[in-house]
Protein backbone atom coordinates (compact mmCIF):
# COMPACT_ATOMS: atom_id res chain seq x y z
CA UNK A 1 0.00 0.00 0.00
CA UNK A 2 1.32 3.43 -0.91
CA UNK A 3 0.54 6.27 1.44
CA UNK A 4 1.11 9.93 0.66
CA UNK A 5 0.75 12.31 3.55
CA UNK A 6 1.09 16.02 4.26
CA UNK A 7 0.97 17.58 7.71
CA UNK A 8 -2.17 19.49 8.63
CA UNK A 9 -2.73 22.23 11.18
CA UNK A 10 -2.05 19.81 14.06
CA UNK A 11 1.65 20.39 13.38
CA UNK A 12 1.36 24.05 14.40
CA UNK A 13 1.71 23.57 18.13
CA UNK A 14 2.16 27.30 18.89
CA UNK A 15 -1.12 28.24 17.29
CA UNK A 16 -3.37 30.12 19.72
CA UNK A 17 -5.82 31.88 17.38
CA UNK A 18 -7.32 30.38 14.25
CA UNK A 19 -9.79 32.03 11.90
CA UNK A 20 -11.56 29.58 9.60
CA UNK A 21 -14.63 31.69 8.98
CA UNK A 22 -16.24 31.80 5.53
CA UNK A 23 -14.93 28.44 4.32
CA UNK A 24 -16.63 25.16 3.35
CA UNK A 25 -16.30 23.17 6.56
CA UNK A 26 -19.22 20.75 6.85
CA UNK A 27 -18.80 19.32 10.32
CA UNK A 28 -16.80 19.47 13.53
CA UNK A 29 -15.14 16.19 12.59
CA UNK A 30 -13.36 18.13 9.83
CA UNK A 31 -11.66 20.02 12.68
CA UNK A 32 -10.54 16.82 14.40
CA UNK A 33 -6.82 17.52 13.92
CA UNK A 34 -7.16 20.66 16.06
CA UNK A 35 -7.63 18.41 19.12
CA UNK A 36 -3.84 18.09 19.18
CA UNK A 37 -3.21 21.86 19.19
CA UNK A 38 -3.22 22.36 22.94
CA UNK A 39 -2.39 26.09 22.79
CA UNK A 40 -5.47 26.95 20.75
CA UNK A 41 -7.63 29.45 22.67
CA UNK A 42 -9.57 31.29 19.97
CA UNK A 43 -11.41 29.52 17.14
CA UNK A 44 -13.65 31.16 14.55
CA UNK A 45 -15.60 28.74 12.35
CA UNK A 46 -18.47 31.12 11.68
CA UNK A 47 -20.18 31.19 8.29
CA UNK A 48 -19.34 27.65 7.22
CA UNK A 49 -21.63 24.72 6.33
CA UNK A 50 -21.62 22.93 9.68
CA UNK A 51 -24.90 21.09 10.19
CA UNK A 52 -26.15 21.86 6.68
CA UNK A 53 -25.73 18.39 5.25
CA UNK A 54 -27.64 15.51 6.77
CA UNK A 55 -25.18 12.98 5.34
CA UNK A 56 -21.64 13.93 6.19
CA UNK A 57 -18.94 11.72 4.69
CA UNK A 58 -16.31 12.97 7.15
CA UNK A 59 -18.24 11.64 10.15
CA UNK A 60 -16.41 8.32 9.98
CA UNK A 61 -13.31 10.12 11.21
CA UNK A 62 -14.95 10.49 14.61
CA UNK A 63 -15.75 7.36 16.58
CA UNK A 64 -19.40 6.70 17.26
CA UNK A 65 -20.96 7.16 20.71
CA UNK A 66 -21.80 3.45 20.73
CA UNK A 67 -18.22 2.36 20.15
CA UNK A 68 -16.55 4.58 22.72
CA UNK A 69 -16.73 3.58 26.35
CA UNK A 70 -14.98 6.60 27.91
CA UNK A 71 -16.25 9.57 25.94
CA UNK A 72 -19.75 10.64 26.86
CA UNK A 73 -19.40 9.41 30.44
CA UNK A 74 -18.77 12.87 31.93
CA UNK A 75 -21.41 15.11 33.57
CA UNK A 76 -22.64 16.43 30.21
CA UNK A 77 -22.99 12.91 28.87
CA UNK A 78 -24.91 11.75 31.92
CA UNK A 79 -27.22 14.80 32.05
CA UNK A 80 -27.86 15.19 28.33
CA UNK A 81 -27.17 11.89 26.58
CA UNK A 82 -29.52 12.85 23.75
CA UNK A 83 -27.64 16.05 22.98
CA UNK A 84 -24.27 14.30 23.21
CA UNK A 85 -25.46 11.79 20.60
CA UNK A 86 -26.99 14.50 18.42
CA UNK A 87 -23.86 16.67 18.47
CA UNK A 88 -21.37 13.83 18.83
CA UNK A 89 -18.71 15.15 16.41
CA UNK A 90 -18.78 18.59 18.07
CA UNK A 91 -18.59 16.93 21.48
CA UNK A 92 -15.52 14.86 20.49
CA UNK A 93 -13.58 17.88 19.24
CA UNK A 94 -14.63 20.53 21.76
CA UNK A 95 -14.01 18.44 24.88
CA UNK A 96 -10.35 18.09 23.92
CA UNK A 97 -9.80 21.79 23.20
CA UNK A 98 -9.03 24.48 25.78
CA UNK A 99 -10.94 27.25 24.05
CA UNK A 100 -11.67 30.64 25.60
CA UNK A 101 -13.43 32.04 22.53
CA UNK A 102 -15.53 30.31 19.90
CA UNK A 103 -17.55 31.67 16.99
CA UNK A 104 -20.03 29.39 15.26
CA UNK A 105 -22.63 31.90 14.03
CA UNK A 106 -23.71 31.59 10.44
CA UNK A 107 -23.76 27.80 10.48
CA UNK A 108 -26.85 25.62 10.19
CA UNK A 109 -26.03 24.03 13.54
CA UNK A 110 -25.97 27.38 15.38
CA UNK A 111 -28.89 28.06 17.69
CA UNK A 112 -29.91 28.24 21.32
CA UNK A 113 -29.78 24.50 21.85
CA UNK A 114 -26.31 24.12 20.41
CA UNK A 115 -24.97 27.22 22.19
CA UNK A 116 -26.25 25.87 25.49
CA UNK A 117 -24.64 22.51 24.72
CA UNK A 118 -21.31 24.13 23.85
CA UNK A 119 -21.24 26.07 27.12
CA UNK A 120 -21.73 22.81 29.03
CA UNK A 121 -19.07 20.94 27.05
CA UNK A 122 -16.53 23.79 27.27
CA UNK A 123 -17.03 25.26 30.76
CA UNK A 124 -13.89 27.42 30.45
CA UNK A 125 -15.28 29.21 27.41
CA UNK A 126 -15.53 32.98 28.00
CA UNK A 127 -16.79 34.26 24.67
CA UNK A 128 -19.32 32.54 22.41
CA UNK A 129 -20.34 34.27 19.17
CA UNK A 130 -19.16 37.62 20.48
CA UNK A 131 -21.19 37.34 23.66
CA UNK A 132 -19.45 37.12 27.00
CA UNK A 133 -20.58 34.15 29.02
CA UNK A 134 -22.61 35.11 32.08
CA UNK A 135 -20.65 34.78 35.30
CA UNK A 136 -17.32 35.77 33.70
Amino acid at each position, binding site marked *: *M*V*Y*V*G*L*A*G*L*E*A*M*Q*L*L*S*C*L*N*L*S*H*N*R*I*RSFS*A*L*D*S*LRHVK*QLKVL*DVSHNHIGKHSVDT*TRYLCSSPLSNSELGQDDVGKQNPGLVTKYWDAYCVLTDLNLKQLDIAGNEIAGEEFSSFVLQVVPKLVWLDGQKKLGN
Partner: protein
Amino acid sequence: MIFPDSRLQYKVDCSILDFFLNSVSSCLLLIKRMFMQVTSSSESLSRHLLRYRDMNNLVCLRLNNLSLSRIASVEKLLFVQMLDLSHNELHSTEGKFLDFRCCICVVNVTKWCMLVLQDWRQCNFSLV
Protein backbone atom coordinates in the same frame (compact mmCIF):
# COMPACT_ATOMS: atom_id res chain seq x y z
CA MET B 1 8.90 -1.89 -17.43
CA ILE B 2 7.79 -5.48 -18.07
CA PHE B 3 6.54 -7.79 -15.39
CA PRO B 4 7.69 -11.38 -15.58
CA ASP B 5 4.26 -13.02 -15.24
CA SER B 6 2.43 -12.08 -18.46
CA ARG B 7 1.68 -9.39 -21.03
CA LEU B 8 -1.90 -9.14 -19.79
CA GLN B 9 -0.70 -8.40 -16.29
CA TYR B 10 1.51 -5.66 -17.73
CA LYS B 11 -1.42 -3.89 -19.45
CA VAL B 12 -3.72 -4.02 -16.44
CA ASP B 13 -1.06 -2.78 -14.05
CA CYS B 14 -0.10 0.06 -16.37
CA SER B 15 -3.67 1.38 -16.47
CA ILE B 16 -3.85 1.25 -12.68
CA LEU B 17 -0.50 2.95 -12.45
CA ASP B 18 -1.53 5.69 -14.91
CA PHE B 19 -4.71 6.35 -12.98
CA PHE B 20 -2.85 6.46 -9.68
CA LEU B 21 -0.09 8.76 -10.94
CA ASN B 22 -2.50 11.09 -12.71
CA SER B 23 -4.64 11.38 -9.61
CA VAL B 24 -1.77 12.01 -7.24
CA SER B 25 0.12 14.36 -9.53
CA SER B 26 -2.90 16.52 -10.32
CA CYS B 27 -3.73 16.76 -6.64
CA LEU B 28 -0.16 17.55 -5.64
CA LEU B 29 0.17 20.17 -8.34
CA LEU B 30 -3.04 21.78 -7.14
CA ILE B 31 -1.67 21.96 -3.61
CA LYS B 32 1.67 23.25 -4.79
CA ARG B 33 -0.12 26.02 -6.62
CA MET B 34 -1.98 27.03 -3.48
CA PHE B 35 0.05 26.74 -0.31
CA MET B 36 3.53 26.55 -1.83
CA GLN B 37 3.08 29.82 -3.66
CA VAL B 38 2.81 31.48 -0.31
CA THR B 39 5.25 29.47 1.75
CA SER B 40 7.95 28.74 -0.84
CA SER B 41 10.16 31.70 -0.01
CA SER B 42 10.65 33.98 2.94
CA GLU B 43 9.88 36.93 0.69
CA SER B 44 6.47 35.67 -0.38
CA LEU B 45 5.72 34.53 3.15
CA SER B 46 6.70 37.86 4.71
CA ARG B 47 4.02 39.62 2.68
CA HIS B 48 1.42 37.74 4.69
CA LEU B 49 3.08 38.01 8.10
CA LEU B 50 2.21 40.52 10.80
CA ARG B 51 3.59 41.03 14.28
CA TYR B 52 1.38 42.51 16.99
CA ARG B 53 3.67 44.46 19.31
CA ASP B 54 0.84 45.30 21.70
CA MET B 55 0.06 41.57 22.06
CA ASN B 56 3.40 40.13 23.23
CA ASN B 57 4.82 40.26 19.69
CA LEU B 58 2.32 37.67 18.51
CA VAL B 59 3.09 36.43 15.01
CA CYS B 60 0.08 36.48 12.71
CA LEU B 61 -0.10 34.93 9.26
CA ARG B 62 -2.93 36.10 7.04
CA LEU B 63 -3.80 33.70 4.22
CA ASN B 64 -7.33 34.91 3.67
CA ASN B 65 -9.07 35.34 0.32
CA LEU B 66 -6.66 33.07 -1.55
CA SER B 67 -9.15 30.39 -2.69
CA LEU B 68 -7.22 27.75 -0.71
CA SER B 69 -8.96 24.40 -0.69
CA ARG B 70 -6.33 22.21 1.00
CA ILE B 71 -3.77 22.65 3.74
CA ALA B 72 -0.20 21.62 2.98
CA SER B 73 3.42 22.40 3.78
CA VAL B 74 2.82 23.87 7.21
CA GLU B 75 6.36 22.81 8.15
CA LYS B 76 7.55 26.35 7.47
CA LEU B 77 4.78 27.88 9.54
CA LEU B 78 5.40 26.25 12.90
CA PHE B 79 6.27 29.58 14.57
CA VAL B 80 2.88 31.13 13.72
CA GLN B 81 0.59 31.87 16.67
CA MET B 82 -2.33 33.48 14.86
CA LEU B 83 -3.51 32.10 11.55
CA ASP B 84 -6.17 33.70 9.40
CA LEU B 85 -7.53 31.31 6.79
CA SER B 86 -10.87 33.03 6.42
CA HIS B 87 -12.66 33.45 3.09
CA ASN B 88 -11.11 30.41 1.44
CA GLU B 89 -12.55 27.09 0.25
CA LEU B 90 -11.23 24.80 2.96
CA HIS B 91 -13.20 21.67 3.83
CA SER B 92 -10.96 20.45 6.63
CA THR B 93 -7.94 21.18 8.84
CA GLU B 94 -6.46 17.84 7.82
CA GLY B 95 -3.46 17.81 5.53
CA LYS B 96 -3.46 14.15 4.56
CA PHE B 97 -4.72 12.66 1.33
CA LEU B 98 -6.99 10.04 2.75
CA ASP B 99 -8.58 9.63 -0.67
CA PHE B 100 -5.33 8.72 -2.34
CA ARG B 101 -4.37 5.66 -0.37
CA CYS B 102 -4.22 2.87 -2.86
CA CYS B 103 -3.13 -0.70 -3.14
CA ILE B 104 -0.78 -1.79 -5.86
CA CYS B 105 -0.01 -5.50 -5.87
CA VAL B 106 3.17 -5.51 -7.89
CA VAL B 107 6.19 -4.51 -5.86
CA ASN B 108 8.05 -3.10 -8.88
CA VAL B 109 5.24 -0.66 -9.60
CA THR B 110 5.26 0.56 -6.02
CA LYS B 111 9.00 1.12 -6.12
CA TRP B 112 8.67 3.01 -9.38
CA CYS B 113 5.91 5.19 -7.89
CA MET B 114 8.22 6.01 -5.00
CA LEU B 115 10.94 7.18 -7.36
CA VAL B 116 8.51 9.41 -9.26
CA LEU B 117 6.91 10.85 -6.17
CA GLN B 118 10.20 11.56 -4.43
CA ASP B 119 10.37 14.65 -6.64
CA TRP B 120 7.86 16.26 -4.35
CA ARG B 121 10.23 16.75 -1.45
CA GLN B 122 7.63 18.46 0.73
CA CYS B 123 5.67 15.24 1.06
CA ASN B 124 6.08 12.74 3.86
CA PHE B 125 6.30 9.54 1.90
CA SER B 126 6.21 6.07 3.29
CA LEU B 127 5.26 2.52 2.53
CA VAL B 128 2.66 1.08 4.89
